[in-house]
């Protein structure tokens, strides 16, 4: 086994993703099969190979630090599930 059910449960907490018992079972099997498949990468010697994060060679893209129009508070809040005045309201964080 490449991954255990307990590890899948741990990853679900890292991903902030609640999973049902049935999902934990099926994901353990599916992730195990996928991780077994990607194992083939280990057969390649990549000693000294520079990792590619970006396929097109680029320098940093700088721009002038200028004030430009952005969203109004109403626009920014237009899809808010819950709001209070000009703020997003969330469940209580501090008891």
């Amino acid at each position, binding site marked *: 086994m490449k991954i255990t059910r307990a590890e899948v449960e741990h990853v679900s907490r890292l991903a902030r993703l609640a999973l049902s018992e049935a999902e934990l079972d099926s994901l353990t099997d599916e992730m195990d099969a996928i991780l077994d498949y990607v194992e083939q990468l280990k057969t390649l010697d990549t000693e000294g190979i520079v990792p590619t994060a970006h396929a097109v060679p680029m320098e940093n893209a700088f721009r002038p630090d200028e004030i430009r129009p952005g969203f109004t508070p109403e626009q920014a809040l237009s*899809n808010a599930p819950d709001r209070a005045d000009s703020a997003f309201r969330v469940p209580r964080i501090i008891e």
Partner: protein
Amino acid sequence: MTIYDLTLAELRARLDNRELSAVEVTNAYLSRIAATNPAVNAFITVCSDTAIAEAQAADQALAIGEVTPLTGLPIAVKDIFNTAGLRTTCASRILGNYISPYDATVISRIKEQKAVIIGKLNMDEFAMGSSNENSAFGAVHNPWNLKHVPGGSSGGSAACVAARQAVAALGTDTGGSIRQPASHCSVVGMKPTYGRVSRYGVVAYASSLDQVGPITRNVRDCALLLQAIAGHDPADSTSVNTPVPDYQAGLTGDLKGLRIGLPQEYFIEGLDNDVRKAVEQATATYRDLGAEVVEVSLPHTAYAVACYYLIATAEASSNLARYDGVRYGLRADNAENLIDMYMQSRAAGFGAEVKRRIMLGTYALSSGYYDAYYLKAQKVRTLIRQDFLDAFEKVDTLLTPVAPTPAFALGEKLNDPLQMYLSDIYTIPANLAGTCAISLPCGFSANNLPIGLQLIGKPFDEMTLLRTAHAFEQATEWHKRKPDF
């Protein structure tokens, strides 16, 4: 000929000489969508009211001679592009009620040209899938055979163009999501070079691989639409500031001196016999047209799918962290506290494939596994990219199949994620290498399902791809076939 059978270039001519008005064209398409969409399910949102208003504005512009290449042409866009005032769902429950407050740059560009946005298209949720079955709005059906998938993730985009529900469409391609459905639906689809088209306002899946591109009925239309969307955008720092050539001017039909490479690693076991025959026939056509065809090697091809499913899922797990039920999107209302609200909202909002990829990506990035999975995959990506750069020292373009098989049946691969992933084996490498590629019709299987031909070009040389694809189209009739629908 009915209005909806005309190509983009043909409609342009009829709008310019006032034989047709933009409102007439838009109404013809809205009727066509109403008649065909219950069977195809390519649209998530049909923009009936706004489309007519946009068509009226286009007619006013045409009346005073303010004509751009796209004025008055009804274009549909994948529901991954932010469109101000319209719903943008990404085919997910989590964005089911999301109304974009702004336009993606590609949307602004086609709006500036007074194109008519006729609707938002179905897709695999968050562009994750190869069959368009992973949609909260139901699967898309292939217009060539309604029991088969249209491909994915831009399945709605390809099916809509094949079913004549829009004259052209925009899609996105992260691992083949434009080319594979284009192949399965017998339309033309291009993934431009990474950085050629702005990604600003496009809902992110895997940011180092995502690219926007056109899906059209022929290569000339592809060149026209690419022209409208290509170019540097200050709002996307990964878009590249390099000149955009006149693509239509490049469609000369002349292939003298062109060197085409056949990567031997692409013609292997698992390649369907009908697909192999069609691609071999296309190769012969290219020889007849005067191109020189040689064998080349892309030695790390076999590792591309594994490499992709680590890099793409890692980037996805990071990108999709933003769906937390705080600022927009679905929020679960039964949460006990803030963390529980995140966990329940995401559980209720995401579908099975999205959860699978978030989990895989989170695992690949997690402490203790980063080097073994994510960093290793990035190093293998370097090798895959180098394969292409080496091959392009010898040839101008590569010729390959798009998908190992014609469109599979709905449901066939739904319960086997790995088999589904392997259907992208020929398209993924171009995304990893960051280069451009196009899919165009090159035949049909024994049971009348479309087969596509892929041409992969040098970075930023979309022009050679279009010229090479156009010459094939001039010599063949495949692109003229339409589904009996």
